[in-house]
């Protein structure tokens, strides 16, 4: 069986074969070969013995990925066959490099630029607040603000393009 799994933008092929037709298996990940025995303990808990080292791991299914816990570290693992990557949320368009979007659901507090303004890379554009913390969204590059798609007090989410910035022409 072959899987194609992505963690933090890195996609790796994994090949699994059973040695005894049951839970005694061999995993080939890149150059590495792992001997794995396993048992499901509960809905979300698995017991793995990888190269004779025993580990308890936790796995739950999220919207587009599985969340996996191993010794205090968590991983988001995606299988492109199972969770085909979706286009940018809501607006359904690919996010362009000059677009400014909040990193999480939040509320707009202040808009510090207006359409037509020339902005410098790193300049503060919009202040959003979530969980009582304010964060300033900054310009990703030098350019002109061509569109502001939000207002103060609006609830916004990742993928919402709040400010569109057109790259400054070299000739200017």
């Amino acid at each position: 069986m072959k899987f194609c799994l992505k963690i933090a933008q890195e996609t790796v092929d994994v090949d699994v074969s059973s040695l005894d037709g049951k839970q005694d298996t061999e995993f080939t990940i890149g150059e590495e070969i792992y001997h794995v025995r396993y048992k499901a303990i509960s809905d979300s808990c698995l017991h793995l013995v990888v190269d004779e080292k025993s580990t308890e791991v936790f796995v739950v299914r999220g919207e587009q990925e599985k969340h996996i816990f191993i010794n205090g570290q968590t991983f988001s693992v995606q299988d492109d066959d199972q969770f085909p990557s979706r286009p940018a949320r809501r607006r359904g368009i690919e996010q362009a490099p000059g677009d400014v979007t909040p990193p999480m659901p939040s509320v707009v507090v202040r808009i510090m630029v207006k359409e037509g303004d020339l902005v410098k890379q790193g300049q503060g554009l919009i202040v959003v607040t979530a969980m009582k913390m304010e964060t300033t969204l900054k310009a990703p590059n030098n350019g002109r603000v061509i569109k502001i798609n939000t207002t103060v007090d609006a609830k916004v989410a990742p993928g919402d393009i709040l400010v569109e910035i057109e790259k400054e022409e070299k000739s200017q």
Partner: protein
Amino acid sequence: MFKKILIANRGEIAVRVMRTCREMDIQTVAVYSEVDAAAAHVLEADEAVLLGESEPSKSYLNIDRIIDTAEKTGADAIHPGYGFLAENPDFAENCESSGINFIGPPSHVIRDLGNKTLARTIMEKAGVPVIPGMLKATTDTALLCQEAEEMGYPVLVKAVSGGGGKGMRVVSAREEMEEACLSAMNEAKKAFGDGSLYLEKCLESPRHVEFQILADRQGNAVHLFERECSIQRRHQKIIEETPSPAMNPSLRKAMGDAAVSAVLASGYVNAGTVEFLLDRSGRFYFLEVNTRLQVEHPITEMTTGIDLVRQQLEIAAGTPLPFKQQDITRRGHAIECRIYAEDPEAGFFPSPGLVLFHQEPSGPGIRNDCGIYSGFEVPMEYDPILSKLVVTAGTREAARMRMIRALESYVILGIRTTIPFLIDVLKSPEFAKGDTYTDFIERHFDNWSQNMEASNLARIAYIVDELTASTKPSAGLKERGCPTPWETLGEWRM
């Protein structure tokens, strides 16, 4: 003693207060906002009353509604927890005039100490050393900029009625000053209803050391030793410990005495915390008095064996302190890690959302004060604290290793948390040595990212989860094909 207490807070701290109430046979009333209808504190309380919409001003900050709820439910006291209305003198005053016991200091003391510049003046008079800075707050950014110019950068911009790092900014250059003031003012206005700011000189990598105090109505005051809280991000503590690695008996005596003088000078009653900054030469400066139960109070409880919430209730009910300074002893070392719904790889930006799975660590010396459960949706409206993991052990090193073990077995899936970051901090040689200063995170953990060593193991786990999907044992016995009691009972009658 009180018969019924309303807890004007949410999450882990509301749950923690209710636990002591239950142990003292006191009924509890939870209050909640729309988004918190199934929050942990609602489940823990004997009764729960909806305050209103999720916006804090319409729920947890709505003084009239809370007092009204206390009256309607017959609560004879209100515990404010920390944050929200805990340090709001108007709230305390409203309780006093409605004949409801406010579990905290009198409103005039909260007002005096909550005004950071007035507090500085009181401390100076009592002979407690203070940090050089402004003695009057203002909302005039031009004046703040001018003062900063005279003081010399870096300066600390602070909200006059601040706390918990809200409305506070370190400004290292003139260009950043105006935006920092505006942003701090706005944050402070929202969190505390007052946007006035003042400046303090920024000390170079100090330690944050605070003393827990208790003062009764009869005029007795004691301290319960120090807590070191130097590991901070955004001026908010994330790891606290006691004893402080920087402390020696004579310094502890001097600081403890100063904390008690600070308390007596302000007419303080109930539990409180006197915060100091300790510089590298061992000089200490008064920072502020937190007129509430602190987030990190459990480490003091774990090492002194004193339940601080119980003491708060006893003091509020008029009981004199049952111990004197020399009766208070402590044992071992305790560390607390705050587990926040934040992404430590993205500048600790909040990460609210649905908790898909939650399993707390257990074993010797572990306590977890927690406000979430599997299936709980962490709301974006409030502080992102999920739980406080506390360990105790005989020595600092044993406590450090125990905390690493506890963090490594604390499973929270679905939202990003600070757990992997905390593990790396605890494992760092600097933390192990006790070299903890308030700039620790910027200095050693700037641009931190998670260790990816276990990513192949994660890939294996993903696939094993697929392979076992059909054979997973679920909780309880399988229902499939089993007749229901209604089918098997037949002709029996109850």
